[in-house]
């Protein structure tokens, strides 16, 4: 008798292998250029949906990018190793298929679903697919969180790539979009975890990104091409966002949605990931701040005055907000 763990291992490898097998019609593929479609994110989604639709006993949860399979095949090394193995030797997949049939699964029906899911997830770029996928597939209580986090991710990538805004309004739209999505993300993530360390890191991150966006605005106002070091700073911001601003919450969602044979063990692993990403996020933040100052990405006092003066906010609203700040400012000075 096969143990449930061994059983799960065979099932994961089989579904993984069938994705490659069917995409290339059972042919042997040795040229890695032909695998360009095969990304880890795509495989996770396909495998997760297949497991969900047939209630296949595979340990899975809703994690960083949506559906996630808890297996070494989801890690970079495991993914590359098995990708190469099954692409080079399609007969290994055929052998697995026989084993799965023997376990009592209706392989033909499942293969049809694998083909259908593969077709869908390779029909466009993941950037195009993910927003729709999140709307439809995310567990209802996390829909807003996933949509806003994906929008933030995309906006930060645009900031890291676009060195020239032909029209100022494009930058303002992007900025407004960022602010809007960050607000939703902040509110939704607070509902999951509202502890001082992560809140403080998130607040500092919010201010840091705004500072860098303000710097971009100064380039646009002066009609200058945005320098590479500013774009590269946004790349680092984007990575930091994924690792330390998003990962802690994604780890919590994963713990809440884990199911399958190894759910209990995996919950412990994800709790550890949550803890580590929160503490490393706090300690690694200083590197970004140092870079901001060292590379002169922070606008000058003069530039800030100009930016606030031309802020699209209504003049009366600005005056009211200034009055509020003034009250708090005097109060600070008076009571300290």
């Amino acid at each position, binding site marked *: 008798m096969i143990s449930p763990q061994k059983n799960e291992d065979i099932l994961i490898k089989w579904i993984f292998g069938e994705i490659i097998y069917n995409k290339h019609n059972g042919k042997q593929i040795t040229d890695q250029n032909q695998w360009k479609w095969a990304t880890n994110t795509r495989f996770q989604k396909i495998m997760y949906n297949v497991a969900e639709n047939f209630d296949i006993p595979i340990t899975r949860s809703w994690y960083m990018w949506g559906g996630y399979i808890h297996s070494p095949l989801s890690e970079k090394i495991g993914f590359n190793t098995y990708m190469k193995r099954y692409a080079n030797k399609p007969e290994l997949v055929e052998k697995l298929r026989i084993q799965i049939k023997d376990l009592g699964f209706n392989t033909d029906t499942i293969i049809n679903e694998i083909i259908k899911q593969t077709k869908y997830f390779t029909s466009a770029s993941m950037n195009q697919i993910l927003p729709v996928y999140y709307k439809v597939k995310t567990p209802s209580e996390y829909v807003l969180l996933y949509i806003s986090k994906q929008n933030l991710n995309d906006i930060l990538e645009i900031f890291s790539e676009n060195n020239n805004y032909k029209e100022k309004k494009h930058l303002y739209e992007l900025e407004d979009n960022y602010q809007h999505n960050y607000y939703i993300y902040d509110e939704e993530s607070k509902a999951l975890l509202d502890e001082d360390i992560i809140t403080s890191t998130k607040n500092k991150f919010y201010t840091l990104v*705004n500072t860098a966006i*303000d710097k971009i605005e100064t380039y646009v106002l002066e009609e200058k091409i945005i320098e590479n070091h500013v774009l590269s700073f946004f790349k680092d911001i984007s990575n930091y966002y994924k690792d330390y601003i998003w990962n802690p919450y994604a780890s919590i969602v994963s713990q809440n949605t884990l199911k399958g044979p190894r759910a209990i063990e995996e919950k412990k692993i994800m709790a550890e990931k949550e803890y580590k990403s929160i503490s490393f996020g706090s300690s690694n933040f200083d590197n970004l701040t140092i870079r901001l100052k060292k590379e002169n990405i922070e606008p000058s006092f003069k530039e800030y*005055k100009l930016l606030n003066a031309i802020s699209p906010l209504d003049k009366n609203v600005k005056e009211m*907000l200034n009055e509020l*700040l003034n009250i708090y400012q005097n*109060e600070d000075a*008076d009571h300290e």
Partner: protein
Amino acid sequence: MNNAIHILDTNIILSYASDFEENHVDCQTYFSLDIIKTTCSRVNIELGRISSKRNKLYEDIKRFLETISSIEKYTPSIPLNDNEIKHVKKIMPFLMKVPMYNIRQYLDRKIREIQSGINNARNMLKKPFIGLYNHIALETHIDKWINNMSDSQILSDSCCWARETKSNFILSTNDYSDFINKREDLYYCICGYYENDYKDKNFEILSVSEILHK
């Protein structure tokens, strides 16, 4: 005047950094003057505290707008007097039509502008006493003086004052009453600094505007 040492109080630096203050423009001009400006450690600590407490404002506004149906229950997260609370409550309903994320962005940038101004002002400060005088001794005296007077601080309208002694010693502050009430303290502080019996008590009190146009 050009040789005088100006010792700046917190509000001078804030007035330079923040355009809420009536004398903001004067303070900006004052900072552009080629004069020796310095400050004491207590002022630096106070500026740090002011910066860190501002973030509470956004949370306060958000909390207020979320519970707008029960305005009377609103309590600010830092101590405000009755008039200020009334003023805050009057302003908040007008902000309801503005998306919170726009409010947050504006406040965040405004706070950074003020912080940048404070940093700018700090960068313009010098430590003229090192090598010339005993800097630590002076700072201790000034700290002591400011600490002594803090209990009776009364903030006047935003008017910037400076006091000049015949020995080219100027202390800039917004609070005229400090000088009136603590005249003797300041005098003894300066006497201690110069380690002699400084007999000339004929201090001159000047506003920043007077300094600028003298």
